[in-house]
């Protein structure tokens, strides 16, 4: 079943077109890889779906609703930047999410915080970029959301943390939820992707089932990525 539908989506900044007339949809229960080099429009697309940026043209429908309060109730967004309030401790962040999101599982989140080697009494400002990355993923994935938007979740993480984060993402997939992960680091994430969308200059260069692409093109997604973007 279709969870997200994007129709004729365009985003322009003055004279620069970041996204150009995109049309695609996301199905329930799948993990999508939104792939592309820097400045290909991945983050802009994520921000548009999250509702923090407005499209120049076109529309986005999530779970039958246009972007607004209703979609924010079912979309869990993890931005690339450190968006957590600096004055908070990890414990306060967990309470914050529990207070605002009905679908937030505090017990699960607390367990995951410990699993990630973090402590609820730690202040956000005292966390290293790796610890912060792990906390952001814990917070985003501890919601029972319908759609998870993970913008570069592996950035700044060491190999052990990456493994843990990927494991957590896999554990969070439910039949009725969808995950859209944007990244330009393909190798480690390739194995968990069901489908891929490759963006190039604000347009979809290639999209499809990851396994089908591997079989038909006789190459891994990473190799396919290199082929698509070699002249980019």
């Amino acid at each position: 079943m279709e969870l997200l539908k994007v129709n004729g989506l365009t985003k322009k900044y003055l004279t620069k077109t970041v996204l150009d007339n995109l049309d695609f949809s996301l199905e329930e229960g799948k993990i999508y890889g939104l792939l592309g080099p820097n400045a290909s429009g991945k983050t802009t697309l994520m921000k548009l779906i999250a509702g923090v940026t407005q499209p120049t043209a076109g529309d986005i429908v999530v779970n039958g609703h246009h972007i607004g309060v209703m979609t924010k109730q079912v979309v869990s967004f993890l931005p690339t930047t450190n968006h957590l309030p600096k004055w908070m401790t990890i414990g306060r962040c967990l309470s914050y999410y529990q207070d605002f999101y009905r679908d937030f599982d505090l017990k699960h989140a607390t367990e995951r915080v410990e699993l990630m080697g973090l402590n609820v009494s730690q202040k956000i400002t005292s966390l290293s970029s790796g610890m912060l990355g792990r906390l952001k993923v814990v917070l985003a994935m501890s919601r029972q959301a319908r759609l998870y938007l993970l913008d570069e979740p592996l950035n700044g993480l060491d190999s052990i943390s990456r493994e843990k984060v990927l494991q957590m993402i896999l554990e969070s997939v439910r039949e009725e939820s969808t995950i859209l992960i944007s990244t330009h680091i393909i190798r480690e994430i390739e194995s968990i992707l069901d489908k891929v969308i490759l963006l190039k200059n604000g347009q979809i260069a290639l999209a499809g089932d990851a396994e089908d692409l591997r079989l038909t093109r006789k190459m891994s997604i990473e190799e396919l990525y290199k082929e698509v973007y070699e002249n980019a």
Partner: protein
Amino acid sequence: MLNFIKYEWLRRWKFFLAGILVFVLADLDLFSRIISQESPNYISVILIALVFTLSAALVVDHLGRLYRTLFSDEGFTELTLPLSGYQLLGAKLLAIFLECVAVMTIVGIVAYFDAIYVDMIALNWQLPSLTWEIGLEVLKGLGFILGGYIIFVLMVYLSLALAKSIFATFKHGILIAFGCFIVLAKVVDYLGDILSVSARYYLHGSVAFMTTTDWLIIIVLIGLLFISTGFLLNRKMNL
């Protein structure tokens, strides 16, 4: 919405408590010196300077609350919460309103205790009895000041919201926001004729001369600014 106010308070209750303590200390210091007819020393100067600095910091903090949402990464947290732009703005304004009321109440209580103490020790001075008329007059005056302050805060907020929505594609967002504020100030001046309301208030030295229309203008201005800013936060943000 109430959760939002809760976190606004949790964020700055220490700052608020420090402000109250400094104010009470400054009052005690000054008052005891006046009673004992001593000159203020450097401690008095520091305490008074601290009171002014903290008051200014509170105003800057009030204005900066939407700035943080729109111009820092924290916006990704606040603007993805399942709240409408109106709820977000309403919660921020309600928190500011409650803080202002709290400040006025604390200042009023301290002044009242000062007056009672003077009444006890000064032979040729008597505390005037507090009548309903005086109380109402004071409340009207405070309401007028608070209304003006909320209009000012909303004008700044609307300017910031314009810079991050309609003018978001342009560089130098802060300069644009400042330009928007200047234009807004002119528009508010023209539309509400707020200056004549102020003039009437200050000329007569009493809010009793303010008409129902004057109060209505203040309420309409707050409403217009709130709806415009809320709409932009709801539908037009470009972080």
